């Protein structure tokens, strides 16, 4: 059988970016670690003087898992939109791949695996730095790595399913501004959803990012029940499976009409 078909495509993406990888990873780390330093320590200084709002967890430690999930989510947004579009419209990597034994589904899975791999490297480094901020407050903290990757991976699959069907990239900026950024700000990364009005709160509960934030936070700091985390995993797992199923169809339609 040899090398799995999808991994042969992953190898192309890996080889293409491996020289730039250290740079892109440092860039990917700057934002979350910047937030962690400025908000976690700066704002945290005031938050931690308050009324025990976060059940005794210092704000920096409480914020860290949220940023971990949000970074994976944002990475998924960039890779799942532009690099997919580029592979269809500009560089033609998919077209080259499916002229060989690879099928559209292998092009999809291979690209997705690469996106997830890069996401995992970033998340692992992030998680290591977070330990120094005292954010590992439960024995399950290391499991936040697969938690963050599940969050980003599920969302990446959903975006890929859609991005591959696009004829222009104009709508990507709209998604970035009106979906990704609001979720980043309001899906529980920076403050508990209890602070939101009920309507917005329920809206936030329905988003993949909130489930990712809740899961990573539950694994790293006390305060989340096992049942909630199980629901988070189930939500993200179902999303990933459903998005992948749709993505296989949309890749086949687009690449091999």
């Amino acid at each position: 059988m040899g090398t799995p078909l999808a991994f042969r495509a992953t190898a192309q993406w890996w080889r293409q970016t491996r020289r730039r990888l250290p740079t892109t990873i440092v860039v990917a780390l700057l934002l979350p670690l910047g937030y962690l330093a400025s908000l976690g320590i700066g704002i945290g200084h005031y938050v931690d003087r308050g009324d025990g709002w976060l059940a005794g967890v210092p704000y920096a430690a409480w914020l860290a898992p949220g940023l971990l999930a949000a970074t994976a989510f944002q990475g998924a947004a960039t890779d799942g939109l532009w690099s997919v579009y580029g592979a269809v419209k500009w560089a033609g990597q998919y077209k080259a791949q499916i002229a060989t034994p690879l099928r559209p589904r292998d092009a999809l899975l291979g690209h997705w695996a690469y996106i997830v791999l890069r996401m995992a490297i970033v998340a692992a480094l992030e998680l290591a730095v977070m330990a120094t901020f005292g954010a590992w407050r439960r024995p399950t903290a290391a499991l936040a790595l697969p938690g963050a990757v599940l969050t980003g991976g599920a969302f990446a699959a959903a975006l890929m399913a859609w991005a591959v069907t696009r004829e222009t990239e104009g709508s990507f900026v709209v998604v970035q501004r009106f979906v990704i950024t609001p979720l980043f700000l309001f899906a529980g990364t920076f403050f508990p959803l209890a602070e939101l009005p009920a309507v917005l709160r329920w809206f936030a509960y329905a988003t993949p990012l909130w489930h990712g934030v809740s899961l990573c936070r539950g694994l790293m700091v006390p305060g989340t029940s096992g049942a909630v985390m199980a629901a988070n995993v189930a939500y993200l797992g179902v999303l990933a499976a459903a998005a992948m199923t749709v993505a296989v169809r949309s890749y086949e339609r687009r690449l091999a009409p």
Partner: protein
Amino acid sequence: MADDVVIEAHGLVKRYGTNPTATPAVDGIDLAVRRGELFGFLGPNGAGKSSAMRMIACVSPRTGGELRVLGLDPDRDGRRIRARLGVVPQEDTLDLELNVADNLYVYGRFFDLPRRALRERIPALLDSVSLADRAEDRVDSLSGGMKRRLTIARAMVSDPELVLLDEPTTGLDPHARHLLWDRLRHLKDRGVTQVLTTHYMDEAEQLCDRLVVMDGGRIVAEGSPAELIAKHVSREVVELRFADGQAPADVGTQLAGIGDAVEAMSDRFQVFADDGDAAVAEVMTRGLHPRQVLVRRATLEDVFLKLTGRGLVD
């Protein structure tokens, strides 16, 4: 199916979308390509050549009819067939982020060629397309002709039995075209079966052992370039151009009967004849005085024009 038939199609149809009344891109074509042949699809843009090629390349499921490639059914054995094909797509799909050698390496890995064997093979492949000295260069820095040659080397990386080339020289300058033709003839000498699409009649004439002429999704003629010319037009063509307003109104009638056929074009008359000079003499005898007279060999363009009433390139 005979062993030496590499591609066989009967009533092959391709229709895009779900509307069953939509005009098919490929409308029931029959063909057989034999091993070692250089076979061509000639036709204008939109004739259905690329759609036919995509079905043969197993990247587009057929809507109807029969198709066998290398003795296998693309619907069932697409992967196995593609593993034995080399594809040169119409647009370059080289990875611009990788250097020249890495493009071949990554592509070879799609076929799961062993890493070491691949590394050993790449210099010879690059040499075969005169790119040996560019191995470490970025693909960006190559000219259009070099990129095409690299794409051909890439298609050969898996040592394919059948090479498919979709409009291989579109957009190339004459020098680059001739270099590329040279490479294709070289492949043919090595016994590699090749199928190409083109809308250049000179390319079809220069390269193809046999070809089909396509128009509107159908095959309108089939044969070797010489056979097609012999069958559909005469050996020579006389082009007669009259100065503006100087041609007699009934010049068409006056030319009637000269050669095998006379055609009125927007800017000239064409007389098809086996002996062009004799036809010119007859024109003069009849007292007509064209501003310009040109006797030339008949080409596939004339065949296409005769069969469809239109030129190949609009």
